[in-house]
Each structure stands twice: as structure tokens, then as C-alpha cells.
């Protein structure tokens, strides 16, 4: 569960995120859209502890990210757009090391490592060093590493960077299954079709402010006002930014 209350982040005179409030219950798949520089990554960085909010608060699974960072972080998994991997470790070792960071017991960890490797179909190359991986392989290992400790919440920044169609399908199916099993998912993306396909609710941010926040069903109704395409809704709502 994610709760953002009046979240604001300023850099000097520039306001990157402006009074954003949001609540994502357990099991909800939330899509976060916005043009470049709208404040998506800043919001995610505040949620994951890489920025501190100028005002407002963030609670993840009941823990305040600023006041109880370790407890909050222990409950979520994070997949950045350009993941950092330890190059000299194999994919399997990296997943193990991530599990260790979350304090997992060895027996459970071994089981879970194999589970996520099977889930994301990494077996054939997971024992090679990550320095030899392609961007897509790195991304899939990052997913596996983020899932290994069975997080209650998953935060994803641009999940499809570098993924081939088959890998993208695997990732989408996995995420959908997790959301059905009660994991709340916060996904920032530029791929509108993916939002339409997977998300229960959609938020569109523009110039730091939330300009649209509604369910997928209502989004479809909204689309009907235009030419039936999400792209048109997106372009209309973020029009000012493009001009």
C-alpha cells in the first residue's frame, strides 16, 4: 500500500513535484504517466529514499519513508530504469546478495532465488557474470532481485527499457500475477498501451501536478470524448508542456 500526502519537491525556485496526493491500496496496479520532466522520476526517487520531500509525506505499507526508512524499504522492491548491478557477480549471486540485504534466511532465500529465476526464465544465462549481460538481461535480473524478498509493493521506473517482446511478455505476466496476489504496483512508463493493458488505475502528472487520476474504466470513458485513443487523452492533458 502506498500513500502520498501533499507531496512536494522543490529545487531552488523550481517545483518538480507540486502537492501530489495519492493512495494505492494492496493489489492495485497503478500506472504513472507524464511527459519528460513532468516529475515522475522525482516522485519515485522520493518514494525510494533517493530524495527527501520538501513538504508532505510518503507512507509505504504503513511506514513513513522519511521517518522509518529501513522498515519502509524492507517492504518494497524497486526497479530503476537504468539498474545498477555488481558487474563481477553472476546474476544468481546478485539475486542472492539482494535477498541478503533484505535480511532473508538462507533456506527461504535459496528457494526464492530459484523461484524468481524460473518465474522470469533466467536459468540459461543467470550463472554468467552480469558484466556480459545485454540491457534486457540486466533489466530481467533486476526484476528478479526486486521480487526475491516477496515485497508487498513494487515500484518500477520504465520497466520495458531494453526488453525484447518475449521478455516484455514475461515481465508483464509476472507483474499482473503479483498484483492479483495482493502486491501493489506503482509503475511509471511512457508506453501507453501497457498502461491500458495492465493498470487498474492511472495517474497523469504534468509540470509536477497530478492532472488526471482515475480508474482504467473511467479512462476508457474519457477516451471516448476524443478519438478513442489514450494517446489523444495524454496529449490533450499534457498539451501545455509540449507547447
Amino acid at each position, binding site marked *: 500500500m502506498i500513500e502520498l500526502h501533499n507531496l512536494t519537491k522543490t*529545487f*531552488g525556485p523550481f517545483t518538480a513535484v507540486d502537492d501530489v496526493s495519492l493512495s494505492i491500496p494492496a493489489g492495485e496496479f497503478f500506472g504513472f504517466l507524464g511527459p519528460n520532466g513532468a516529475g515522475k522520476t522525482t516522485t519515485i526517487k522520493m518514494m*525510494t*529514499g*533517493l*530524495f*527527501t520531500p520538501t513538504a508532505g509525506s510518503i507512507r509505504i505499507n504503513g511506514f513513513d519513508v522519511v521517518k522509518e*526508512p*529501513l*522498515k519502509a*524499504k*524492507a517492504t518494497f522492491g*524497486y526497479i*530503476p530504469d537504468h539498474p*545498477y548491478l*555488481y*558487474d*563481477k*557477480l553472476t546474476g544468481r*549471486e546478485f539475486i542472492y*546478495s*539482494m535477498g*541478503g*540485504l*533484505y*535480511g532473508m534466511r538462507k533456506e527461504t532465500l535459496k528457494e526464492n532465488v530459484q523461484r524468481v529465476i524460473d518465474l522470469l526464465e533466467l536459468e540459461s544465462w543467470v550463472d*554468467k*557474470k552480469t*558484466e*556480459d549481460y545485454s540491457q534486457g538481461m540486466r533489466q530481467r535480473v533486476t526484476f528478479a532481485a526486486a521480487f526475491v524478498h516477496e515485497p508487498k509493493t513494487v515500484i518500477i521506473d520504465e520497466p520495458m527499457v531494453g526488453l525484447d517482446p518475449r521478455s516484455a511478455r514475461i515481465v508483464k505476466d509476472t507483474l499482473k500475477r503479483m498484483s492479483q496476489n495482493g502486491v501493489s504496483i506503482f509503475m511509471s512508463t511512457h508506453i501507453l498501451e501497457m498502461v491500458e493493458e495492465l493498470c487498474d488505475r492511472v495517474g497523469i502528472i504534468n509540470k509536477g501536478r497530478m492532472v488526471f487520476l482515475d480508474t482504467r474504466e473511467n479512462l476508457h470513458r474519457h477516451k471516448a470524448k476524443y478519438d478513442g485513443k489514450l494517446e489523444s487523452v495524454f496529449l490533450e492533458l499534457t498539451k501545455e508542456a509540449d507547447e
Partner: protein
Amino acid sequence: MSALLHILRSKLRMFLAMPSSPDTGTVVRSAGSFVVFGSFAVGAFFFSNFITAYLLETVGIGLFLFHRFIGMLLFVFFVTVNLGNMVVAFTTLYRSPEVSFLLTAPVSYLNIFIIKFLDNFFYSSGTLFMVGLSVLLGYGVYFGYPWHFYLLMMFGVMVPFMFLAACIAVIVLLFLMTLAPRVNFRVLVGGIVLFYIGQIYLYFTVTSPVRLVQEVMKFYPYVNLYFGSLDPVIAKFLPNYWVSEILYFYVNDNFEAVGGYVALMLLTTAGLFVLLLAAANGLYYRTWLASLSLKRLTVKRFEAKDMVFAFGRRSWFAPVTEVLLKKEFWQFVREPAQWIHFVVMMGLLTVFLSSVSTLSIRLESPELKAVVYLVVFIFNIFLINAVALRFGFPVMSLEGKAYWSVRSAPVRLSSVYRTKFLVTAAFLVLLSVAVAFLSNIPYLFVRSVTDLATGRMETVTPHDDVRALAWMTIALTPVVTFALVSLNVALGAVYADFAEKNPVRIASSQGATMTFLLSIVYIVLLLALYYYPTLMVFNAELKQVPADWRVIRFAAASIAVPSLLLAAGVHIAGLRSLRRDLA
């Protein structure tokens, strides 16, 4: 604690990991590194052993003076470790992607700090530790010490000594980063630079090697006595002094004093480490967040559109050369890690030059004169080499992942390489001439000197051959500099790391360390070739006879020709390696 151990275990595994698919190039480079590191360690051992014997037996400076000189060298060593740790620590603690990664996991800020601090310490002190150990072995073997001397010195003295320097460096950095958002960043950096320069200046003013030699030499030939009363009070609080005392008292079998100083060293180091952890616990995460907005503060004033280097302004260079030069310039001035380090190095160089250009002691022994002359000469070369390593080695790597823009343009790779090399070489050659000239002033012009025996000031006109030697040195220095810059830029291409954005980390990578060691081998060979002619000139001065200039000219040619051949050879290797990497 368990998270900390878990990460440290993973790091150890990564450190010990072999490359996944070692090709011939990797194997050759690794073998080359091993040979160079090994040879350097052996060379440092013999050099230290020889110098100990030479100073104590041939020159006869006595145990007290000898250990005070060691103390002074250790001060320079301490400041080097300290500054090295501080510069690299900024990158390791505040710019590392690993920190961003760990911050999103449930790992405490203090644990992240400890991991990165240790990372930084081993990264920036590893080579210096190896150098220190080899030198210690050379020293110990001269005195015929048993094995437990080395154990004591390694774990009771050297490691704590270097760790102490690292702790102080990072405490200063944390303090700096805390102040950075509130104070003008440039003023802050300027303040720190002045602080360090002032500290070095003060140390050598307070301890005054010249006065010390004068005082001790008054008792000649009883120079082995303990002249502890000559030490200024402030020096006794410095860790380099403690190490020199440990070594001195060990020679004199005063193990009670040795134990006392070792305990002092260990306790001080432990205390500083606790203080560092306490500071980091409160400040690290806060300063890490502050560092994110620091870049914005540092680049603003380099945006002047009307500057000569503005892309919009025309110049008389060919278009390709012009954009390459301008690109280099802007990349340099907009990267705080570059210009801050540059300012620090130039500051230190200025202090050194202002000291040596006014050096005024009168020595009688030609051996001692030759040693002093060569120490200054070699120190100049070391300084130039340090600048070349820091700014020349990373130039090819810094092109980074943006290489596609140059490679996909109709520009020859050799043009890019040549431009980058020439920019670095032109600056350093000019700098080296200035350095060589200033440090040779005492040997070129009429000057006042202090007679060590009487303490009186006298006017001295340099002997013609000494003056000619000084001009010869001034002429040779740019040639040597050219070779060193070539070595650094070319091996920087051979060991290019296009994934690393930070110049400081590139300049302290394994390839850079190897380049540094190769440079030192070259400098030691230089020293060997130049020693005899220098001694001959000072002997001629003493006897008031003309020196045999055929020997001096031969030595100069023996330095210049191989230096230029070395430069040509490494450039071919560098360019070839670059072509292979980017093919």
C-alpha cells in the same frame, strides 16, 4: 551488522572474481600489471635499502637526522594519503551509483557509509601501501631486523597511520559537504586548498630542515646523538613524528618508547574512527542529499557566452580541431572533480617552487650537493608526472559513451587522439620548463647562502659547470615531460574505461596505477643516468677544475633519445589499442 557483513562478503567475492571470458589482451594486461607491480616493489626495496646505506655510511648524516628526514617524508606521505582519500572519497561517497542502489534497500546509512569508506580506503591507499611496505623492507633489511619488526610496523604502525589519514580526510569532507549548501562552494574549496597549502608551508617552516641540519652538524662528527630538544613542540603531536620516533627508538633498542608510540598511534586511530562514525551517522545521508544539488552550484559561472571558448565564436583553428579543443575545455571546467583537483595541485606546486627557488644552504660535500640537486630535480619530475597521471591518463576514457558522436563523424580517430594529447602535453611542457627554471635559480644566479658550519650568510657565484648543468636540466625537463605525458595519455588509451565518468576514479584505476609504476621505473632510470654527471660537476666545483662535458652530453643524449623513442612507442600502442576497442 549482518547487512554490513553480507555486503562486505559480496564485495570480497567480486574482488576475487576472475574475468568471465579472459581474452589474450586481458591476460597480457594482467600479466603485465603483475610484472610491473612486482618489479616496482623489488625496485622500491633496493632503492630504499641503497638510500639508507648511502645516507648513513657515505654521506654520514647520523641516525637522528636520518629519522627526522624520514619523518618529513612521512608527513608528505600522510598528506598524500589524506588528500588522495579526500578527493576519491567525494566520488565514492557521493557520486557512486552503488550508493543510490543501496539507499533503496533496507541498509542503514551508517552501514552504507562504512562500506563506501572502506572501499575508498583500499582503493586510494592500496598502491601507497605497497610502496610503503617495499620501502620499509629495504630499510629493515639494512638494519637486519627480525620478522616481527615488519609485523609490528605493518599492523601497529603503517595501517593505522594510513587509516588515520583516511579518517581525517573523510571527516573534513563530511564537514565540507555539510557547509557546502550554506556557503559559496568556490569559497569553501578555496578555503580548503589554502588550508592544506598553509599546513604544508607551516610544517616545513616550523620543522625547518635547514635549521635542523645546521644545528645537528654543529656537533659533527657526533651526529648519532638524540637531538630531541631540537624538535618543535607542535611536531610532536603529528603522527609522522610518532612513526619516525618508533623507527629511531627501535634502532636504539628502546622498546619502551616504541611501545608507547605504537599505543599512541593505535589509540588515536581508533578514536578518530569512532569520531568519524559518529559524524557519519548524523551527516552522511544529509550531505548525500545535499550533494545532489551541488553540481548546479558549481557550473553556473562557467556559462559565459562571450568567452573565447564559446562554441559560437570563430577561431583560426580548423573546424574539427576547434570543436575538439572547445569540447575539451568545457568538459574540464564544468567538472568540479577536474578543476578543484587542478587548483589543489597547482597550489602545492607553487608552495614547492617558492621553497626551492629560494633554497639557500651551503653544503661542502659534493655527494650531498648531488643528492640535494637530484632530489629537487626528481621531485619536479614527480610533480609533473602526478599532474600528467591525474589529467592526462583519463583524457581518452573521459570521451566515454559519447564516443559514438566522434566515431560516427568524418573524423579520424588519430586526430581526436592527437588533439587530446597535444592539449595536455603543451600545458605540461610549459609548466615543466617553468618548474625547472624556478627550481634551478639557486644554481644559475649569484645568491646569498647560509654556511652550515658557521651559520653565516655568504654571497656565492655559481661555478660555470654548475650553471651549465642547471641549463642542461632545464633543457632536458621538457623532453622528459613529453615522454611522461605520452606514457600517461597512451596507457590511458590502452586501459581506457569508457563506462567510468569520473576522472578521479579513472586516474586511480589499476591501469593508472600501472602507468604510475612504469613512470617511476622510468624516473629511477633517469636518476641513475643523471647521478654520475651531477656528482662529477659538483666534484669539479669543489676542486675548481672543469668537468668532462663529454660525459654530461652522453648522459643527456642517453636520456633524451630513449625518452622520445618511448613516447613514439607508447603512442603507437595507445592508438592501436583504441582502434581495437572501438572497432
